[in-house]
């Protein structure tokens, strides 16, 4: 319900509310209710599959996603992805040794700026999602009792298109599993941002990095 009040507070809530209600009904009564809510206490492969299924069913039902409505995608990510992700860790590892020099305010600002950047990064890919899109967790070869595991998956985007390999890296927290890194076709997200982050921080400090990220986000 709190989600609904958040929405009510938004500027363009009229159109969004009706769209949102439609989606809610579609999800609740459209047969997709069968997909159980992701449970972070489940074994990692089960958990990752549940997160992906829930996210995909929301994305498929939302026409705003196809139009790359970044504001809407942001909301969906906030509700359907962020609860299962330790994004502070993603940002911290990307910032490397510079994290130590950042004040709590800078850290919060960096986390938010980075999150927006990634939402924009994936908005294009998410807009291509249609009914032919599915994600299937591949054979999990890790140890479910370990604290840090990798879950491989394959994303199929319709027929006659090469499936994309995506791996998720998770860590065990007291609240259950949390995703913190992502590998798309052999490229780890954090590893790929570390260089750029440290380059930008060396040049213009942590505030400079936050400003650079936000500048791109507002373009």
């Amino acid at each position: 319900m709190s989600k609904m009040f958040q929405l009510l507070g938004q500027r363009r809530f009229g159109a969004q509310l009706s769209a949102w209600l439609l989606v809610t009904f579609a999800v609740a009564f459209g047969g997709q209710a069968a997909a159980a809510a992701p449970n972070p206490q489940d074994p990692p492969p089960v958990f990752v599959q549940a997160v992906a299924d829930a996210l995909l069913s929301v994305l498929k039902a939302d026409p705003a996603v196809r139009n790359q409505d970044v504001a809407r995608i942001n909301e969906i990510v906030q509700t359907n992805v962020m609860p299962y992700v330790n994004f502070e860790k993603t940002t911290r590892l990307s910032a490397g040794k510079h994290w130590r020099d950042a004040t709590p305010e800078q850290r919060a600002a960096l986390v938010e700026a980075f999150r927006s950047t990634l939402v924009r990064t994936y908005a294009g890919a998410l807009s291509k999602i249609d009914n032919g899109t599915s994600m299937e967790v591949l054979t999990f070869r890790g140890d479910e009792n370990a604290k840090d595991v990798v879950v491989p998956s394959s994303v199929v985007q319709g027929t006659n298109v090469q499936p994309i390999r995506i791996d998720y890296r998770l860590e065990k927290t007291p609240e259950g599993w949390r995703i913190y890194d992502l590998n798309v076709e052999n490229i780890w997200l954090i590893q790929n941002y570390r260089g750029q982050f440290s380059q930008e921080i060396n040049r213009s400090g942590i505030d400079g990095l936050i400003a650079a990220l936000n500048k791109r986000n507002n373009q």
Partner: protein
Amino acid sequence: MTMANARFASFKRLFLISTIVTLGGCASTQGPTDPADPWESMNRGVYAFNDELDRGLFRPVAELYAFVTPRPVRTCIRNAYLNIGEIWSAINSALQQRHFDAINTMGRFMFNTTLGLGGCIDVASMNGQPRIANDFGVTLGVWGVPQGPYLVLPIIGASSVRDGAGDVVNLVGNQLDTIGMIKNVPVRNSLWGLEFVVRREALLTVSKTVDSTALDPYSFIRDAYLQRREAQVLGDADAQSLPDYEDYEDVKADEKALGITPEKSP
């Protein structure tokens, strides 16, 4: 990738221009240099040149191609080109002693060439056998040749000393031995030209994303390239290629607990 002989003259000219661009516009690089990229300022020059050329010529052509050709047709043509490349991938898998990959790739080739109508339809992927891309740069890596400094090549783009050398062999193995065998020169060159456009078109969304989200597209591409090549050399050894990030949150907590003030790094 596509180096038609007919274009060699213009290539030489481009190389010359790129050298001038490099010498003239050495990008000032601040901060410590990446040990993997000691030639960064030269590379950035070539990168800037490639980027100009791409925006002015290759990208518009690829966009036009995407505009006039329906998506299923584009997918079909792209698959057909990838299919021809499977033979060379399989040879490299074999050279790397990855016989399982080599057999799978040859299986894909035969399956897709026949049932997939000349590679147009990727039947093998639909049946759970995804493509295993391979080339001679990876083979050299598996044989123990180090990556060497990162190198941005004119037109081709991201490469390294090892992969650049590998590309010379790739050119012979993957191009001159396939499309290069076609005796009709206009047909052969058209096929090569089309391949270039097709390959560029496949990357349109990627370059759009890099443009709009990377802080520094040059290092974004470099880091992604080096990471992917390293993973290709290591193969599918999942655990081996897991990056080990240093986590500075814990360090701080520990220091706090021990009563040590963390030293400020410059």
